[in-house]
């Protein structure tokens, strides 16, 4: 084990430290982007990036919470895939239906989160396989519901919220509020410390009197709920009940969270890191688009940058692990 962390503040700075490489990458990307592309450093483009990053940012927050508690949630992408058409169908182009539609999307997220959480915490199902199965199931239900077509219609007021700017785009405000709330919970509440303790070492946490099962359940419920919020933002961007809206989101969210300092071994990750990780992905995509790089070459570059940032993290964060610290600090 590591010589320090003694005080809670020490512990917290250890936990969040992994986000720095992602932050450095964001700064580098902004510098490179400003130099390489004239339209990059404009207000319009900045707002565009914020709009793009919002759903991914929200998902990365949810994934960070689950990873912090030592789990993983692969079902969030297909959860969005189901929630978006469901929301569009509920809204049906009617302003009065906006609130019920949002509640349906959030409710679906809560429900899936509860199922995941109960099966992981109480039945002891392996989270990777379980949420992988949930992913297939949700995709099937989505196709069943939509019959492979774009369905439903959004309401004018719902569309207006996402095109208007209140200083920032509407979607960015949603992300900001959720990020602040998550940061507050993780940093200043008992639940935050319970999540951290559960992910660091579930058995020690249990012996210290923490209700590990309940904490795990809450982590998955929050991940599902955040996926519900993500679905609202995706629907806001697409303005259509597109049945493939969520494909691949789970991997992007996991990549963003890991880039931001979360780890599969649990007990690590921060809000700041998750946002920085999501921004890295969004900025790379945005910059490559502006530079007119072909879609296939974009993939090559994106893969390279992901490996690069993880490498940066490995190079800068050698003494950071609470668990397995020795191997990471001193392998020859």
């Amino acid at each position, binding site marked *: 084990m590591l010589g320090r962390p003694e005080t809670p503040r020490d512990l917290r700075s250890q936990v969040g430290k992994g986000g720095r490489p992602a932050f450095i990458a964001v700064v580098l990307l902004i510098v490179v982007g400003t130099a390489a592309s004239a339209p990059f450093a404009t207000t319009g483009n900045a707002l565009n990036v914020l709009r793009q990053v919002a759903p991914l940012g929200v998902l990365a927050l949810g994934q960070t919470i689950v990873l912090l508690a030592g789990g993983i949630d692969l079902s969030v992408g297909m959860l969005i895939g189901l929630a978006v058409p469901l929301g569009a169908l509920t809204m049906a182009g009617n302003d009065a239906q906006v609130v019920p539609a949002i509640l349906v999307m959030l409710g679906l997220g809560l429900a899936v989160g509860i199922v995941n959480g109960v099966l992981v915490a109480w039945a002891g199902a392996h989270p990777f*396989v379980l949420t992988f199965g949930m992913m297939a199931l949700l995709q099937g239900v989505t*196709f*069943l519901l939509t019959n492979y077509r774009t369905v439903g219609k959004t309401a004018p007021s719902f569309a207006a919220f996402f095109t208007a700017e209140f200083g920032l785009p509407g979607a960015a405000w949603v992300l900001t509020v959720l990020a602040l709330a998550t940061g507050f919970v993780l940093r200043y509440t008992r639940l935050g410390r319970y999540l951290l303790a559960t992910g660091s070492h579930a058995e020690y946490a249990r012996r210290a009197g923490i209700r590990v099962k309940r904490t795990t359940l809450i982590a998955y419920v929050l991940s599902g709920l955040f996926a519900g919020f993500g679905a609202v933002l995706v629907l806001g961007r697409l303005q259509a009940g597109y049945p493939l809206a969520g494909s691949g989101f789970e991997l992007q969210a996991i990549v963003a969270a890991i880039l931001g300092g979360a780890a599969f071994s649990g007990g690590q990750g921060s809000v700041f890191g998750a946002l920085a990780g999501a921004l890295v992905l969004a900025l790379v995509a945005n910059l490559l688009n502006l530079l007119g790089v072909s879609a296939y070459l974009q993939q090559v570059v994106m893969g390279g940058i992901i490996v690069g940032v993880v490498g940066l993290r490995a190079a800068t964060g050698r003494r950071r692990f609470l668990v397995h610290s020795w191997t990471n600090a001193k392998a020859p």
Partner: protein
Amino acid sequence: MKSLDWRTHGIWLAVIVLALVAIPIAPGFLSPRNLLNLLRQAAPLGIVSLGITLVMVARRVDLSVGAIASLAAVMSAALMGGSDSRLPLALGSAVLMGAVVGWLNGLLVARGRLEPFVTTLGVAILLTGVNRLVTGGTAFGVLAPSFRKVLNGRWGSVPIVVVVLVLLIVVAAYVLHKTRFGRALYLTGANEAAAWLSGVKTRRAVIGAYVISGVTGAIAGILLLARYGISGNLIGEGYEFDALAAAVLGGTTFEGGKGSIAGTVAGVLLLSMAYTLVLMGGLSYHWQLIVRGGIIIGAVTLYAITQRKARS
């Protein structure tokens, strides 16, 4: 050791239960012909899962195998150029490519100590991009005439692909359970620091596991190419997750140091039976997905419950 044994048995129990459920739903499910067919379908996934099991025993993970399979298919189709005489060159270079990518993964993860999940995912995205750049996103290359004939043929009544699968299972089981390299993988996965201090060459073991994983990915890609007859960048897509799920169902853990080839084989059988069953049931695609998801969720939950009962 005892818990390891039970983990292996637990998943076989689930396989048997699913087989029993299958009999009334799909008569003829347990006929030898259908079982051989099931194994033939399961072969590429099975082969990939073997490699992933070695990597996971060493507490790492490899998400690049699907992309490797796809690139191997495109590469061998392009290199064989419709001529039998170029088959060895084509297949050899595809396997070599798998080994090289695996070696690079291993270097990054073992020497550079990079986070394996995201690193290999990044490599996968990169390889898929390269693949699409080369092919332009369409089918590519002309197959040699004897390539499909041999690989889709039968040895007696056993498909050649199944023979390949069984051979590789035996080799993998020998390597993991009977060699020093295999033991080094377990020790590395269980406690890397202690293993290294005891003189185990942990890095070399991890790199070796990734090379094997890359090679199995390439072999799976070649088999898939033989099955579909055209190369494309969709071959092997998503295989890494199925393979991970199979390994985990079979008792291999992300925490490393645990797992067996027998368990992984059972996991592969379970997933393949689930997939075949929904196909045989004649369900439409969305119901296939729902049933498949339900089976995976049910299996992993039941398995966890029985395992806990057995332990207490």
